[in-house]
């Protein structure tokens, strides 16, 4: 019999050292899994108690949800019982299965946790579950009074002994359970279970002494399948006790159980076989290419199983501690991944290795030509995709200069002695990784941010600057390919459109990229022309997606370039898709609009799936959002090549770059290893996928920065960390290396652009801080206090219900404060509207007048059309001609008026809402931007300013901002100040300030609420000064 062999297996609990303290208890439990085997005498007593329930003529099923060494089954015989059980200890289960396989028992022992199984029914459950292990799983079955709220939601947490007992009670007719005495009150509280309870045997405290447990208060509970007859038997037993019969014990035999015994481990489907080929003598293994993987074709089932076992090696499962990408199942599966093979130094060597691996298990590998050629093509593609776009960046200082250390600091972490003392003067040389610093201790490298954190430049370097070519044009690496593209472009006459040489060169570089790219042309550099040129140059149909308000601008551009009508058309309806031209233009709004209201999901985008070879998205930064309807619809379009155009490609957080990069370059590729839903590809995967991370997680780990919002949150440790708009400084170079093949950037001031056109640098006049009018301030304070009270209650309420704060709701409520500050005439609800002109209105009007007197033509930007209309009335009264440009009119109407009065007319002032005048409009006729209020989004303000910074702008551009002292505008200024940083650091090689605190939105709210006392002081002062 196998029991003697099984008896020799020791439990983990018996081998572990005592925890010694409560602090070590958890660690000990994790180690031992609370695994303590039941002593033989107890098992014997238990069996004697329940034996009368089994008839010798029938076959029964036994179940144990922590089977261990199967000791509780020792008195079963194979002719009468099947053994079913689960245990989390894989090694133990394998050992026990190996031993019991040699017997005649019908076995179903699986390695699984009780919280992750779906069970059938069993005749009898004999259990000694682990005590006091906290189970946490989304797969827990809800048992009232036993399961409770956990990490995964309601009923996802339970105590192991309770859950084990109740699980057995739910799935077994008779249950004999060894559990802690503390379980009794819970059983008593449940009528159903209590009715079934037939006997309670108190066990001696030293029952598990052999398992190194000296004293534990446990009981043996016997439950019947039906309500008990008579009273519950209570006895205290010891090893000498004799079992007494329990009246009425009854259980169903296996056939009567109906669907019967089964144990299904959640997450694994064991019902289907994986290898279906019959065994043959043909050991060939055909190795072909299937997209970006190696596909193996077999003719013999045995060879298939052996080869896959050899290649895959081990199954990988996600745990609470590590989550694998959904496509990663096996540790060795990346041996068949061509992207991983391409990343190796010698990809063909690894292909040979794979062949040897297959040969070592008896297979005969045959590499098909498509695999070989495919691998070569992928290697070539990888090299082409990895070559960065030509790039020139702005550098402060001179290529070499002297600097003085304003503080003592480490220059880097990887060279011994790399430190400078306070006040030390050093010689510096610019290098690709940053700077090479020659100091007293030697010559060391120092990265950009660290350098400027320690040193001050001296001499002319302080004020000097220069432009450095950090990446040469692609033509220097691939001259023939670029020349071929140039020839084609010239034959199409595109050199006549793109008359600035950098535009033509960039056109060829974009066309060189087979997959797609990002065109981050700053405003005014010819994005529209580039879009149209690329549409003509690239093979196949091109779909150009623009914002609806810019359709007319696109038409103007087409007219300027004299593109024949047969080469383009605008898509207005579904039928236009049947008559495609080379350039097909559609708006974002139309693309995502349902074709028929009855079928909201059926959009033009879905209909147009895979029709177009090239997708060119103007203002493509919207693709950085992964969840918006717009980006979802555009992703549906498919397309071989995708190019996004935007001056501010990702203006806030580093992670916004990932969505764009995945869209244009693909995901989980050798040349773009990150992904939104898949895996992260790296060369080490060739050795195994152990601990492989998802693409998204790796991107966040590499590049995102999470910090305590401010020191105060750090101290209280409430509020948690927030993402800050900074790229992880340790990996800034890595980010730049990653993005440089993806994004082509041009800025207005770089030499290649300046050669052809000079853009004025807008002069940002310091914000004008204005005093409040008394009544206006009173209204504003009311609004802020109202918000503060609401916010306090909201936060408390959300914390009580363990929910997060909704930014949408907060912003909606904050709108009242914004209105009170900037549009007090529209206030409603908590106070009466303030209808007089505010001090800001008056200051704005005065400023406009003074600008006009100076001969300038200002645009006043404001968020609310109401404000603009009020200003319009006052300006008209003052005899100043003005045009109100807001979304209240249709696009066509307002553009017509714009052309008539501003572009071709002499209207002195334009009053434009920020929303309708962000992007695409060329307004070089105006020369001053006046922001009546700020925006939460830095991009919006930037876009507004650059409407007037155009190639045809002849005047100096000035930018004014009006801020009421202590108002919401002031805090908004701080908030958006930071958001420029990530963009400029990542793609413009700018600096990231290390030491400043990030004014996150949380901080903004906090400071904003704290401003109330200061405002009240202002009110008080204002009152008394007016009285005086």
């Amino acid at each position, binding site marked *: 019999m196998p029991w003697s062999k099984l008896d020799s297996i020791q439990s983990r609990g018996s081998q572990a050292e005592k925890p010694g303290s409560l602090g070590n208890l958890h660690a000990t439990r994790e180690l031992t899994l609370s695994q303590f085997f039941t002593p033989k005498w107890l098992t014997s007593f238990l069996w004697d108690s329940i034996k009368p329930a089994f008839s010798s003529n029938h076959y029964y099923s036994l179940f144990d949800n922590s089977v261990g060494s199967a000791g509780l089954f020792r008195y079963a015989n194979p002719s009468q019982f099947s053994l079913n059980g689960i245990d989390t200890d894989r090694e133990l289960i394998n050992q026990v299965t190996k031993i019991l396989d040699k017997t005649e028992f019908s076995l179903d022992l699986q390695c699984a946790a009780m919280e992750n199984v779906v069970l059938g029914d069993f005749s009898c459950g004999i259990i000694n579950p682990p005590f006091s292990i906290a189970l946490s799983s989304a797969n827990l079955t809800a048992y009232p009074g036993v399961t409770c709220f956990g990490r995964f939601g309601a009923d996802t947490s339970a105590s192991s002994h309770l859950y084990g007992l109740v699980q057995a009670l739910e799935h077994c007719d008779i249950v004999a359970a060894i559990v802690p005495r503390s379980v009794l009150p819970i059983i008593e509280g449940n009528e159903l279970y209590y009715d079934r309870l037939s006997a309670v045997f108190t066990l001696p405290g030293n029952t598990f002494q052999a398992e190194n447990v000296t004293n534990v208060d446990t009981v043996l509970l016997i439950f019947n399948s039906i309500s008990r007859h008579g009273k519950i038997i209570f006895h205290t037993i010891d090893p000498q006790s004799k079992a007494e019969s329990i009246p009425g014990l009854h259980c169903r035999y296996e056939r009567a159980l109906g669907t019967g015994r089964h144990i299904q481990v959640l997450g694994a489907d064991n019902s289907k076989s994986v290898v279906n080929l019959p065994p043959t003598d043909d050991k060939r293994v055909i190795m072909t290419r299937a997209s970006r993987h190696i596909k193996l074709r077999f003719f013999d089932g045995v060879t298939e199983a052996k080869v896959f076992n050899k290649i895959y090696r081990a199954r990988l499962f996600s745990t609470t501690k590590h989550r694998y990408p959904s496509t990663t199942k096996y540790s060795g599966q990346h041996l068949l991944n061509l992207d991983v093979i391409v990343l190796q130094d010698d990809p063909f060597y690894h292909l040979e290795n794979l062949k040897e691996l297959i040969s070592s298990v008896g297979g005969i590998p045959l590499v098909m030509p498509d695999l070989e050629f495919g691998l070569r093509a992928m290697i070539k593609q990888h090299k082409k995709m990895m070559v960065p776009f030509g790039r020139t960046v702005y550098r402060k200082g001179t290529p070499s200069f002297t600097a003085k250390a304003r503080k003592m*600091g*480490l220059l880097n972490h*990887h060279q011994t002695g790399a430190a400078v003392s306070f006040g030390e003067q050093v010689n510096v040389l610019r290098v690709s990784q940053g700077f090479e610093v020659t100091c007293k201790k030697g010559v060391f490298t120092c990265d950009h941010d660290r350098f400027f954190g320690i040193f001050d430049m001296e001499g002319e370097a302080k004020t000097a600057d220069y432009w450095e070519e950090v990446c040469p044009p692609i033509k220097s690496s691939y001259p023939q390919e670029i020349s071929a593209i140039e020839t084609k472009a010239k034959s199409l006459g595109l050199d006549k459109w793109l008359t600035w040489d950098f535009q033509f060169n960039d056109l060829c570089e974009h066309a060189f990229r087979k997959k797609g790219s990002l065109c981050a042309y700053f405003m005014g550099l010819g994005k529209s022309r580039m879009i149209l040129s690329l549409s003509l140059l690239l093979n196949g149909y091109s779909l150009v997606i623009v914002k609806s308000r810019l359709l007319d601008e696109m038409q103007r551009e087409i007219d300027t370039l004299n593109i024949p009508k047969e080469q383009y058309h605008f898509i207005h309806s579904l039928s236009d898709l049947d008559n495609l031209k080379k350039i097909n233009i559609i708006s974002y709004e139309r693309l995502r609009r349902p074709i028929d209201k009855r079928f909201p999901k059926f959009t033009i985008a879905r209909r147009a799936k895979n029709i177009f070879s090239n997708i060119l998205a103007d203002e493509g930064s919207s693709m950085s959002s992964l969840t918006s309807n717009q980006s979802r619809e555009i992703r549906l379009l498919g397309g071989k090549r995708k190019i996004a155009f935007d001056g501010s490609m990702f203006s806030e957080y580093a992670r916004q770059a990932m969505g764009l990069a995945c869209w244009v370059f693909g995901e989980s590729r050798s040349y773009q290893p990150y992904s939104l839903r898949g895996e992260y590809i790296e060369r080490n995967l060739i050795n195994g996928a152990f601990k492989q991370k998802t693409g998204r997680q790796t991107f966040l780990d590499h590049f995102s920065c999470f910090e305590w919002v401010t020191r105060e949150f750090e101290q209280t440790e409430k509020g948690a960390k927030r993402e800050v708009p900074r790229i992880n400084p340790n990996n800034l170079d890595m980010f730049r290396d990653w993005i440089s093949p993806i994004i082509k950037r041009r800025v207005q001031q770089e030499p290649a652009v300046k050669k052809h056109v000079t853009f004025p640098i807008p002069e940002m006049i310091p914000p004008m801080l204005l005093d409040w009018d008394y009544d206006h301030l009173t209204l504003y304070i009311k609004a802020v206090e109202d918000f503060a009270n609401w916010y306090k209650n909201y936060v408390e309420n959300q914390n009580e219900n363990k929910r997060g704060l909704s930014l949408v709701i907060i912003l909606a409520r904050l709108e009242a404060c914004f209105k009170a500050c900037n549009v007090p005439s529209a206030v409603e609800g908590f106070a009466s509207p303030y209808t007089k002109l505010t001090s800001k209105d008056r200051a704005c009007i005065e400023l406009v007048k003074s600008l006009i007197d100076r001969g300038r033509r200002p645009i006043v930007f404001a968020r609310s059309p109401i404000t603009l209309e009020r200003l319009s009335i006052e300006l008209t009264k003052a005899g100043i001609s003005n045009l109100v440009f807001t979304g209240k009119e249709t696009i066509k109407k307002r553009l017509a008026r714009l052309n008539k009065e501003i572009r071709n007319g002499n209207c002195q002032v334009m009053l434009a809402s920020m929303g309708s005048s962000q992007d695409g409009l060329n307004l070089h006729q105006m020369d001053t931007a006046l922001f009546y209020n700020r925006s939460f989004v830095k991009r919006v303000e930037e876009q507004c300013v650059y409407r007037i910074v155009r190639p045809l702008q002849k005047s100096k551009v000035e930018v004014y901002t009006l801020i009421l002292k202590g108002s919401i505008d002031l805090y908004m200024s701080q908030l958006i100040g930071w958001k420029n940083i990530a963009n400029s650091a990542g793609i413009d090689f700018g600096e990231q300030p290390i030491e400043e605190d990030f004014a996150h939105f949380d901080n903004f709210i906090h400071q904003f609420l704290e401003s109330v006392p200061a405002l009240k002081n202002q009110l008080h002062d204002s009152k008394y000064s007016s009285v005086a």
Partner: protein
Amino acid sequence: MFTQAATCFPDLIADNNGVFHMSVPNILIMRECISTQLKTIITARFNFVIARRELTSCGESISQTDPSLVCVCDTVLSNYFKSLCKDLTQRYSNDTPAIIDLDETHFVFAGRWGDEKYTLDSHFSACLTECEELPLSDQLAYIAEIIDKLDFSNIYNILTGKVKALYDTGLAMLANNLIKDLNLSYNGFTGFYSPVVKPRFVVCTISAVDYWHNRDKITECIRIGNGLRKVRDFSNVNIGDSIFEFTEALNSLTYDKQALESRTAFGKGSNLEIHCFKGKYELRFTHELFDAIYAFFTLYVKPESLPVIEGYANVNLAEAV
């Protein structure tokens, strides 16, 4: 101004307050001072001997023996140079623990326990002993000879050299003390007190103490505080008040409260957090502060004594060890 002065008068050194001084008094001044003091003490000794003898002759027994001429000369010289060294240390150490001292062999006549090797000139000291019975004027005449025995030029050069190197020596001492006190000198040998690099902090562990054994720990903490102050001065990284509060807390341990409660924290949120546990105290430095500390080590500690911390720098531990 400093640069100018340094060029014209190479021995000029600015003290802690930036005031220029001749760093070490020149030879003439030294001779003059010593001469004056010798005159005073020899006269006083002579008068003492006369007075003692008169009292003895009157029947008053005086237990004290006459101080020898050699001893009083040594006393004057010793006091003078020690005082000079102390003054120079105070002026130029700049809050570092380095001190200036001068080997006694440069100015002591009478050796300890009569051992010749400690004396400047044992023959001369024997002569001086013989002079003790001479009249005062004759004794005073020996002052010039006494002074001539001293190699002032050498003493001056030694002291000047030490003054110039004092600050750097002091900084090196501070740095080495920090390495020792923060248990950073294990260099690759992992143990309970090994530093640990975490995403937010570098954690240095020191042993915990109770009321009965806190004196040494307080001294250690004061040393750490002194070192960190210098780091702060050079690097502009705020160290907060945690080390000082912690020292104060250790100092206020009493019989009734013999140890700091486990989980007590000082300086939470600052660049240095100190967390107390039963068996240890953890000093958690932010990376910004630890970088500054490590730069301090790099600049003022010998390369072979630089601590190697796993996970902090890309250094091959095996090679380093």
